[in-house]
């Protein structure tokens, strides 16, 4: 059977991208195979592990449970887009590095996207809330303790940066 192709346009990490893909192409595979962005990982392919989590219009979703054609016209943020504008590590990535929040790193992209969105909603989580926030993501290396620490550290880094900016603004 030759499958009908759909022309799919998505804005990924701020850049408009276009590719043709069959209806059954999952968003995660579209990002990886058609757009060459292999940061998004696929673990279970049925919504349980969270490795494939990306932000769609800023909201965390499972990229293994959305068809690329359904995402047509939407904005997607992947782990590649969670860095700073100069390509430096973003706050959540930096916190993972400082707190040893990753071991093999397979689950990391899903954690980074989930936590990035979460901290926007709740910039000052308690440890309990940090645990709750990552409850939908599985880490086979079971590095949860350090990931929880990374959530709290990322919140701190964001606050430090805000303060720096305010300070810089005040001095100018």
């Amino acid at each position: 059977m030759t499958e009908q192709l759909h022309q799919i346009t998505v804005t990924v990490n701020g850049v408009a991208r276009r590719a043709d893909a069959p209806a059954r192409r999952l968003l995660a595979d579209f990002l990886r195979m058609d757009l060459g962005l292999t940061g998004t990982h696929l673990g279970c392919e049925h919504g349980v592990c969270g490795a494939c989590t990306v932000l769609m219009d800023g909201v965390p979703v499972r990229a293994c449970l959305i068809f690329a054609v359904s995402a047509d016209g939407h904005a997607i943020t992947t782990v590649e887009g969670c860095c700073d504008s100069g390509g430096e590590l973003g706050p959540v990535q930096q916190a993972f590095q400082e707190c040893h929040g990753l071991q093999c790193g397979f689950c990391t992209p899903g954690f980074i996207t989930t936590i990035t969105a979460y901290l926007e909603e709740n910039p000052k989580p308690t440890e309990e809330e940090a645990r709750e926030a990552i409850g939908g993501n599985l880490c086979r290396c079971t590095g949860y303790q350090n990931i929880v620490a990374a959530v709290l550290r990322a919140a701190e880094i964001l606050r430090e940066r805000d303060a720096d900016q305010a300070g810089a603004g005040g001095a100018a």
Partner: protein
Amino acid sequence: MKPPPVVYHGPDTVDEAVRLLAEHGAHAKVLAGGQSLVPMLNMRLTAPARLIDVNRLDELAYVRTDLEGVRVGALARHSDVERATHAFEAVPLLRQAVRTVAHPTIRNRGTTVGSLVHADPCAEMPAVLALLDGEVLLRSERGGERVVKAADFFVGPMESSCQEDELAVEAYFPKPKGRTGTDWRELSRRNGDYAMCGVGTSVRVDESGSVTSAKAVYIGMGPVPRVVDVTAAGADWESAAEHAADQLDPEDDIHATAEYRRHLARILTARSLKAAYEAVAP
């Protein structure tokens, strides 16, 4: 695994979606949040010839509250229901229960109406609809609109009375009458997973605090959400729970034995009824 080949339709209006269902219903599946359908496609448990994606029907992305109750459109996500404070104020059970549906990331995409049509015996929202005596509004080209009461909507495990050519358009959750308290609680192996046993309760009291109505509904304890009336037990929550658990027909599976589930039902029911009562007792 990956989903099987499929022909995709992305209608822009409800009329167009209903027309597509009239034409292809027998070989098509409606794609709403996809949080149940896509896993089934990925695991090749189902292989419809066509998908009718309703995600562009913005007109159905609403949660509306009026004096009667809460109306949830087919494109409202679980997270929309959870966040709608007006809906929580009118029907607190909605937020109490929807918070225990999977994880936030799944709730961001999964729809409440999709969960009703999917009719998983372990799902929370069908039980909420059943306890509140709610309704689902269905539309087809053949029959126009029809309203189905919760009691008639859930037919069996994974089976609702929504027909192949019908689009579920809206769910209606009536506001409980008088002084009514509600509660939801469940036990799962991991926070956010499907519950081994879940119970929702509603208790109505009069001015003096006497119980005039008490009901419980269960998930994971039978093929469809089961509502048990325990008004006769008054405020004796232990015997109400005993009576309710005796009526249930749980089964063994890899997560829990039937006996353990019944034990959970008894404990959770007593606690839940008490909490629902205390929310409104004078």
